């Protein structure tokens, strides 16, 4: 009887671990960037790069129908790569591009903009990185598309923009209305 129970235990454990491992194989165990809420129900204050005035997030995403919030830094190489794509997006009428300068020196940030052009209608600075965290950002670069009227996040890209993402963004903006 005791022997039987031992055998059953072993078989049971093997079967259970088999199924756990099988399940684990099929599931990617990276973090899930899926959000519980995409609503912007928070606010923060940030200083502008080119003036000493401050603005709240709500004020920033007030103009036009859509906003893109792009988190960037002059020390971030992929930001340099994605810059032409942001300049490309600047031509869209319904869209307002806001830059959040992440943990950067102002002088370097200004140099970056001077060198590569300014796609942003407004740039605010985030020297401690806290505002970016409030937006749910992981690092730089990151791009967030917001519907200004409903104050919801429509799309979020972690990492630099490319041709594919650019097309996707344009399609979302075109089809939303």
């Amino acid at each position, binding site marked *: *009887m*005791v022997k039987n*129970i031992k055998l059953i*235990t072993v078989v*049971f454990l093997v079967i*259970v671990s088999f199924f*756990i491992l099988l399940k684990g194989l099929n599931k990617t165990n990276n*973090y*899930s*960037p*899926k*959000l*519980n*809420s995409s609503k912007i129900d928070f606010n923060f204050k940030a200083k502008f790069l080119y003036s000493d005035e401050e603005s709240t997030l709500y004020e920033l995403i007030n103009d036009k129908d859509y906003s893109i919030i792009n988190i960037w830094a002059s020390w971030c190489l992929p930001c340099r790569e994605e810059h032409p794509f942001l300049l490309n997006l600047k031509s869209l009428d319904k869209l307002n591009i806001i830059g959040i300068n992440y*943990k950067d020196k102002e002088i370097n940030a200004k140099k970056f903009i001077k060198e590569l052009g300014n796609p942003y209608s407004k740039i605010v600075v985030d020297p*401690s*990185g*806290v505002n*970016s*965290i*409030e*937006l*749910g950002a*992981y*690092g730089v670069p990151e791009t967030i598309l917001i519907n200004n009227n409903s104050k919801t996040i429509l799309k979020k890209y972690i990492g630099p923009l490319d041709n594919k993402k650019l097309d996707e963004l344009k399609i979302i903006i075109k089809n939303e209305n």
Partner: protein
Amino acid sequence: MKIKILVLAIFYLIGSFNLSNAANSEKVDQISKNLRCLICQGQSVYDSQSDFALSMKILIQKKIDEGKNDEQIYDFLKSKYGEWIVYDPEINKNTVLLWVLPLILFVFGGLLIFRKVSIK
């Protein structure tokens, strides 16, 4: 003598100042130990010195200063980064086995012992 007292008083003030400062950051440590640093594999926000983790710690401090409690801070971060950010997994259909398995094994083991004892 007077100088001695003055020096002691200054040290005392510095000490108490540090202590009152430390009280809050201890709370930050406590919370950040339960948070996964999402951009560094296998580290908590507390352990990590990455930009992400450093900003996160400042944010937690800010939230504490605003009078938020632990639960509110965890919920806030979960709504931003998903459930993965906390080390404590919630019970749902993906994690139910994780929670129930120890219980099953415990009962099973208890049964084994019970059998053994009653046979004797």
